[in-house]
């Protein structure tokens, strides 16, 4: 892992901390300096710098030819990214909110994701589709979904979900260099935007130099012997808070999946074999999705070791607007604590 060799302690440190959005931007900028094939297309990515700061400052350095504001035509510009990628370029297309995938979905799942296979690998699609996900700020049903499971379910695209600045940078480098389409899903609440304060955790020190993080490597954020908590995105930080609260009572291991396709099943199994208890925390809908998948893999691979499973997810309902309603549906620290306690009873 990238942070492994970071100098801890010592009185003076060179490690400055940075936000997730700045880490993403630094990776994109660095790849753009190295290759003329990399460019960005999206709504409000130029002067605005991305509604969630994902392209902040890039216009100044690279200009409008490379940082392209495009019409509100998701089918058009995501499809154009597919075509440019097939022509050998490395476009980064931004879908402003993952919730808007509906108006451009054919280009995503029938073209971007399938052209490699359907062409018998005579074509490849080295593009990044980056998109903002998640709720917690009362933006209601059309602007708050994560849809992790939807994207990960459809074959042919790699899916990554960073939860810290250090991961955001390394995963972005890997995503841009990857020869396959990568869906890069960043949680709005983690970006470190002034108007949407992040929890403690996503802002980390980040090495200055470029580095990649291999896809398919989950990160054990906290080791523990009693219960395995598997999660991703915003809920990595909520799970760590819950685990800290349970210190002395229950020893919780927290696994950040980081990438869904490919999925690091082995790290999950290893942990479950040790703890025997699995709790999956997911900000996506309950049924037919990520939480069910993780539990299925755990039962397929470590059934004999499992004594209890539980999942805490969004319900199978659209996401409501009003504050008490959204708080009710989005898994919070207390919900995680209760689930962890329940599997140890």
């Amino acid at each position, binding site marked *: 892992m990238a942070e492994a060799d970071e100098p801890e302690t010592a009185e003076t440190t060179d490690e400055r901390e940075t936000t997730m959005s700045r880490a993403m931007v630094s990776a994109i900028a660095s790849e753009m300096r190295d290759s003329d094939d990399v460019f960005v297309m999206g709504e409000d990515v130029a002067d605005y710098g991305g509604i969630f700061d994902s392209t902040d400052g890039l216009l100044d350095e690279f200009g409008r030819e490379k940082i392209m*504001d495009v019409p509100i035509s998701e089918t058009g510009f995501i499809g154009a990214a597919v075509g440019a990628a097939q022509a050998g370029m490395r476009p980064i297309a931004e879908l402003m909110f993952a919730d808007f995938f509906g108006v451009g979905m054919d280009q995503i799942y029938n073209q971007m994701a399938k052209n490699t296979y359907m062409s018998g690998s005579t074509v490849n699609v080295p593009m990044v589709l980056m998109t903002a996900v998640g709720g917690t700020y009362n933006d209601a049903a059309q602007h708050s979904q994560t849809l992790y499971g939807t994207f990960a379910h459809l074959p042919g695209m790699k899916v990554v979900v960073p939860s810290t600045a250090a991961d955001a940078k390394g995963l972005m480098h890997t995503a841009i260099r990857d020869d396959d389409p990568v869906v890069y899903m960043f949680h709005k609440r983690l970006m470190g935007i002034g108007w949407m304060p992040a929890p403690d955790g996503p802002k980390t020190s980040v090495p200055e130099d470029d580095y990649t993080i291999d896809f398919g490597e989950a990160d054990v954020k906290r080791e523990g012997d009693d219960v395995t908590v598997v999660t991703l995105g915003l809920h990595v930080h909520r799970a760590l808070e819950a685990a800290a609260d349970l210190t002395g009572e229950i020893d919780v291991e927290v696994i950040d999946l980081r990438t869904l396709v490919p999925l690091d099943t082995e790290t999950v199994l290893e942990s479950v074999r040790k703890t025997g208890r699995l709790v999956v925390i997911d900000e996506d809908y309950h049924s037919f999705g990520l939480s069910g998948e993780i539990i299925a893999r755990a039962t397929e691979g470590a059934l004999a070791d499992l004594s209890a499973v539980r999942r805490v997810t969004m319900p199978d309902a659209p996401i409501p*607007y009003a504050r008490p309603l959204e708080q009710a549906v989005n898994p919070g620290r207390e919900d995680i604590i209760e689930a962890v306690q329940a599997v140890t009873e």
Partner: protein
Amino acid sequence: MISDTELQEMYGWMVTARYYEERLQEEYLEGKQPAFDISAGPIPGELHLAAGQEAAAAGVCSHLDDADTVTAPHRPHHVAIAKGVDLERMTAEIFGRRTGLCKGKGGHMHLFDSAVNFAGSGIIAEGCPPAVGAALAAKKRGEDSVAVAYLGEGAISQGGFLESLNLASVQNLPVLFVIEDNDWAISMPKERVTDIRNGSQRADGFDMPGKRVDYDDACAVYEAAGEAIGRARDGNGPTLLEVQVHRRMGHFMGDAEGYRPEGDSERAKRRDSIERMETTLQKAGIDDDTIGDIRDRSHQRVDDAIEWAKDQPEPEPDEAYDDVFTNPPAGWTPNTKPEQAESTGGDD
């Protein structure tokens, strides 16, 4: 000719809408200063205000009654007010209250008032196809009601809009598409994203009448919309209308508008459709007392609605799980968090 009653009614909607947005801005910023935290305060989430766009709402809705359908995009308040949406319950919805139009589930971008056939969507151009559907239903049932789909000039490059134009045209449906051209789609000026200056030219490709009103004069909008809606009611098909309006505020509250050239907002503020309307009223011989009275009553109505809304109860957390289906299948559960799951068929 526009009657004095209609003029006064349009003016009333316009000043109601303007004052409404100004008051909502105040309420929205409550709890968001000095730190602008989007999830804080009595109105959380995004808020897109329509100050400067009132003429496009008033001039069109003057021709509509409750049976006619209107769909509005993410910037809906002025249109909702002119369509006759219940102001108190709409405000309660924006404050996330249980007695709101949508029980606190929708919020300001997703207002639904079936009593006056008003519906919203936050997805760009996606209100257009349902408006076509409302017109289709009216036609099939032999009713003379029409449907109006509102959209911004940024939405005219979206498939949902273009497909709707074609469908409405080929089926000869009673639809009016109204483009509110406020020059901006968030930070993107329209010349960056389309090569046509006049959005109503999109109609040409669908063999549909298209018209642009170049200035936000509610009366000019009234004339153009009257013709289009008359045509639609008579069974002569759809029309595309574009109205130049002005964005007096940021795209959403919290938008620092760093991308907007100096002077552009000032220019937008100088073109004031409400002042223009006042001049029109005066020219029509309506005295200043009457005008002042309409304004005062409109402001009072807004203040009352906001006061009422803020007094309303918040929804109970468990209400989040209601309303997924009109007719929930037997045994179905929304799979709530463990402590709320009472029935079987859920977790574990």
